[in-house]
């Protein structure tokens, strides 16, 4: 079976449309981030506590919320029903002072005991405010330095503009995904950061496959304009791009459906990231190459 054989789409011809779409999504994401005062970080990054409680029967979400809101800051109590039909409840709260960290578990458990019912605590996590801000810094530092490393490698293997284009595409993907998280009001937790790293990996991979083909074709077609070479390269790699991304998307979707609550944020980021990442290697990274060439050529 072969799909997308010998295609001749003019990807760069419609680049304005696609760049417009990218800009729209990016701007919407950034706007949401600005309005909401930055991404909604999970307690791993802010300092706080989260408890996962499983109930037999319906979880008394409203009762617990009423009980705790007066005692703890920024309480959120969310009931969650997954496919397997268990009744779980996530209780989270901010911890602003290191000294409150010692008592927060007891406060929550007391409220649970007063409400009554058959429940069991499945997990509990409490993170001091200091370690939260450390983690945030570390996550940003790690991602930024990894991107710089990739840029340097690509600049060395290809040309520096290839590295820049690939990293811009990756930043574009990360921004859109984080923006979508903000629009959907979902929390950025440590696992979501792992998913962001994963999607950076995917997006980079996609971009490099196209760039590799561009480099190869340029050697054969020295006298053709770059625009034509790029278009041909995208078309040549199109069936692999579609198939690879489709299959990975399939895996990510199965993770979203069957992966359970713990992996939900992770899978959500992965699904959006794969879609955006595939798109960006064709419609963001490659046009940057052509635009740069044209600008540099015109400047000379």
């Amino acid at each position, binding site marked *: 079976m072969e799909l997308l054989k010998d295609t001749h789409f003019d990807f760069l011809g419609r680049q304005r449309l696609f760049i417009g779409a990218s800009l729209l999504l990016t701007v919407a994401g950034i706007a949401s981030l600005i309005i909401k005062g930055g991404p909604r970080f999970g307690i791993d990054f802010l300092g706080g506590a989260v408890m996962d409680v499983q109930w037999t029967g319906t979880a008394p979400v409203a009762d617990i919320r009423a009980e705790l809101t007066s005692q703890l800051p920024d309480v959120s109590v969310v009931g969650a029903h997954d496919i397997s039909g268990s009744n779980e409840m996530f209780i989270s709260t901010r911890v602003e002072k290191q000294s409150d960290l010692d008592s927060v578990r007891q406060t929550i458990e007391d409220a649970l005991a007063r409400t009554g019912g058959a429940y069991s605590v499945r*997990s509990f996590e*409490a993170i001091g405010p200091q370690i939260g801000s450390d983690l945030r810094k570390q996550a940003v530092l790690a991602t930024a330095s990894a991107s710089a490393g990739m840029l340097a490698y690509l600049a060395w293997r290809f040309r520096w503009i290839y590295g820049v284009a690939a990293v811009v595409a990756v930043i574009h993907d990360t921004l859109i995904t984080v923006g979508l998280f903000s629009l959907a009001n979902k929390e950025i937790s440590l696992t979501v950061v792992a998913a962001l790293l*994963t999607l950076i990996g995917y997006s980079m991979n996609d971009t490099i496959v196209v760039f590799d083909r561009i480099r190869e074709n340029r050697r054969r077609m020295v006298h053709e304009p770059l625009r034509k070479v790029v278009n041909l390269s995208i078309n040549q790699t199109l069936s692999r791009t579609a198939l690879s991304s489709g299959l990975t998307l399939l895996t990510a979707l199965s993770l979203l459906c069957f992966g359970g609550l713990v992996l939900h944020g992770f899978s959500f980021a992965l699904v959006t990231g794969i879609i955006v990442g595939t798109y960006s290697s064709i419609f963001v990274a490659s046009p940057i190459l052509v635009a740069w060439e044209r600008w540099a050529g015109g400047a000379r």
Partner: protein
Amino acid sequence: MNRLRKQTLLILAVVAACLLGIVGVPATPTAWRDNFRRNIHLGLDLRGGVSFILRVKTEDVPNARQSDVVEQTRRVLERRINAFGLSESQVQAYGSRGNELLVQLPDVRDPARIRQALASPTVLEWYRVESGPYASANEAKAQHGGILPWGTRLFPTQPAGADKEGGAWYLVTGAPVIRGSDLRDARVSSNGMSLPVTTFSLSQEAAARFETYTRANLGKRAAIVLDGRILSVPVIEDVIRDSGQIRGARSLEEAQDLAVNLRSGALPAAVEVIQERTVEPSLGADSIRHGTRAAAAGLAAVVVAMLVYYRWAGANATLALALNGVLLLAALSWCGAVLTLPGIAGVVLTIGMAVDSNVLIFERIREELRAGKTAAGAIAAGFSRAFGTLVDTHVTTVVSCAFLFLFGTPAVRGFAVTLVIGLVTNLFTSVFVSRVAFDWELSRQRAPATLSI
């Protein structure tokens, strides 16, 4: 032909070695399962357990001695959790600040008790009581004309910060007669009906000092102070040489924990818990079950799609994917790497890139076939052309992993390590193993061979 045989043998040997590493040689039908559990180390988020991150308060310690103090604290904490009889527990340095420690305990039921035992400094001191009890610290001062006599200190019977009403204060002489570090051993003994007591024995040098002191102070009161709080105020009834008792524990558990902490020694600096994490084993098991189910569903979909799209070559890719899984597990087991949820993210990315490698190669072979090459020529050209691309994608990812490992949190490091291992095994399976499989397909046909791709 001969070369092909050799390559096949090499692959079989690698696979056999990996299987041996993962499940060992199963002596009984169920032994492979136990071996698997022993060889693949799961993180606390998957197997359940408690972890704490403690910060050693080194603010008052001179810079030069800080790492010493942290290391001493680590040893004391290790002795404490070992004394609790928790096997497989560990205390290790954590983070980049140099004053944080990670304590990991598998399968613990009562995190609050462990937390208390870990964070308590356990400074035990034995003072001579001058006067008391007083109802409050102010009253004690008032009795002495507003200031405490030189060389004396006040201690409450209530912990600091607790309700100030109802406690009593005692005035004691400044220097402690014995300290926790003078102890040789401490045990709990329960004498029938009464509350449990912690008995201790003293080191030789301290015993001599203690004997002199008790002889001189017969009939007088002493104060046993633990972490700034008076536990009991016994009257010295007899000359004590090398052992004594501490009363005042409210439960058997408290007495036991005190004995443990006295045995393991006082902490050289105060510590505070800055992160606590408890995961019930059942939740970990759920995560594993969900993860496995998702991976199985995803893989099944991928395999079906590959078989439909590439026919026999799809089977080839499935073989490469399966071997990649085996190799990855074996490598994780040999490195002693711990599989955590973020690590599983690394595995997911690996699977994605493994499928992509196969697709990349297959598409290239198809192109070469379309360009009119023979089957053998298309395979050779397809692999060599795709290999260049694969090297670039893989090396780029390894470069980014290196930085993630350098600057990342432990969770991110787990991701990076699994990913790098997966990339290396992927190059082996999707380039080498897959090529050998194609060569077999060719060698079984007479020229001109055709490919099912």
